[in-house]
């Protein structure tokens, strides 16, 4: 039998871990597993009947659901554009704002500011800018770029979302890049400077290799964030015009809570999970590998 001390230890172990683990299981683990089950059913969320339909949902999604394919394409294109531009701009900002600028602290705050605000509110702010602000700048300057119907056309609406996501994300990656640049070993940078490295050569041969881990982190962070985009997209365009800017996350939301096809929505969510999990796992493996090499 267990000794009194052993029982005390077990009880103490449970009392420390159980509250977090029980809640975590109910909120995350069980719904996640149930979700996988529902993706093989025709549950509509309202009636109690949940019928097993095998792979029907998946067959439907891959064969007949053109909108899902469009959403996937939109999300992928958006992720590509947003990740590249956000990191490029964020990195250039970090590079400039680690120089001896007189206003650098103020400017760091300015560029970081949009990142604090809820994505939903950012979308609404920019809805006003695109609809009213751009039009008035267009009138004042006669610059045709500002006279376009930004949110009314599929192509410009796409770039509209990209612009807002850069505005939101550039300051965030900037903070990470600044930390990395300030952490570069002083001796190496000084030695290179004394050797006469400057400008491009300094950037390519010294700075970029030294901050590689930060680049990896930022790339994967922004990939995951862009691929899961919902709030900003939802309030800025609502997926329009004509569903041309409907992200995967919005597509799943609509399928489940607007069309009330929970089973189909769960199947889409399952596919979505596989894609996101693959991206994130690749990130972890890659980061760990680099850490060992370093």
């Amino acid at each position, binding site marked *: 039998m267990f000794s009194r001390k052993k029982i005390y230890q077990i009880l103490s172990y449970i009392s420390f871990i159980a*509250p977090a683990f029980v809640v975590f299981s109910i909120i995350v683990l069980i*719904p996640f597993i149930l979700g996988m089950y529902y993706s093989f059913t025709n549950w509509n969320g309202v009636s109690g009947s949940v019928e097993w339909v095998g792979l029907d949902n998946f067959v439907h999604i891959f064969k007949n659901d053109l909108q899902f394919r469009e959403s996937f394409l939109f999300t992928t294109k958006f992720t590509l554009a947003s990740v590249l531009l956000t990191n490029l701009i964020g990195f250039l900002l970090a590079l400039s704002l680690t120089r001896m600028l007189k206003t650098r602290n103020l400017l760091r705050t*300015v560029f970081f500011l949009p990142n604090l605000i809820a994505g939903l509110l950012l979308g609404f702010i920019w809805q006003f800018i695109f609809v009213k602000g751009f039009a008035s700048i267009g009138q004042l300057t006669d610059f045709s770029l500002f006279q376009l119907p930004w949110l009314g056309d599929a192509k410009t609406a796409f770039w509209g979302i990209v612009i807002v996501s850069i505005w939101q994300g550039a300051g965030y990656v900037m903070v990470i890049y600044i930390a990395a640049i300030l952490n570069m070993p002083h001796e190496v940078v000084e030695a290179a400077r004394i050797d006469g490295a400057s400008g491009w050569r300094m950037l390519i041969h010294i700075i970029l290799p030294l901050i590689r881990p930060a680049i990896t982190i930022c790339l994967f962070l922004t990939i995951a964030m862009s691929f*899961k985009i919902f709030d900003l997209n*939802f309030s800025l365009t609502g997926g329009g015009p004509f569903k041309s800017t409907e992200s995967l996350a919005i597509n799943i939301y609509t399928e489940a809570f607007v069309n009330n096809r929970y089973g189909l929505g769960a199947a889409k969510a399952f596919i979505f999970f596989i894609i996101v999990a693959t991206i994130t796992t690749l990130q972890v493996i890659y980061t760990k590998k680099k850490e060992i090499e370093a």
Partner: protein
Amino acid sequence: MGQKYTMKVFILELLIFLLGLVFLIPFYFIVINSLKSFSEILINTAAWPDQFQWSNYVEAWGRLKYPKVFLNSLIITIFSNLVIVVFCSMAAYRLVRSPNKISKILFILFISAMVIPFQSIMIPLIRVTSHLGLLNNIPGIIVMYLGFGAGLSIFLYHGFIKAIPREIEEAAIVDGCSSFCVFWRIVFPLLKPITITIVILNSLWIWNDFLLPLLVLQDPDLRTIPLATFFFFGQYTKQWDLALAALILGIIPLLIFFFFLQRHIIEGISKGAIK
């Protein structure tokens, strides 16, 4: 880096400063237009307001039920943080200090769940939580934030606690302190730096969260700031004078929070990202 303030640096400063202004233009536009009458917004969006229409704010304040939604957001954020900090620090501490097979499996479960996107949980979540009476009330959504926040918070605490030497605790155990007493008296105070990071990351997330409250809080009296703003926009589409004032009211609390805790927030963001 670059030591001397040369002409080149000056030009760089000028360019970045201009870019900074471009970044701020959207704020300028919504602030000045929130103070105009509706017709003035339509006639001239870029101009300075003729006369400040503070009445926009008064009306938006009332129609949003601002004090109520602000309080809802505040209560949800504070209590979610409280339960996350208490239960995740306890769990992480025990997982580190009792290194057995179960601890290892539990830890892997907690952190691997971080890769699950919310969309893959939300549909069954509604069903599970409605059976448990967690839907449509504030304690319910706080419990959900504990569940969703557990992964990252336990992960961050776990990494921090591993670096704390055990000897400090052992001395207290000899003095006859129980395991709860050791944790709360000795260990928890040492966790302050990582607790600050965790509270900041969770606060920004919970305060700004939209989809979970949208699905879970149906009662209009329970709305949070993002939720109330969303319904306000739906109701007053194109009534920009009120909508913009409502937006500004929604943004102000976070700006105040940021200016008080600027250093901690920026540190927290870079620390949280590197993990």
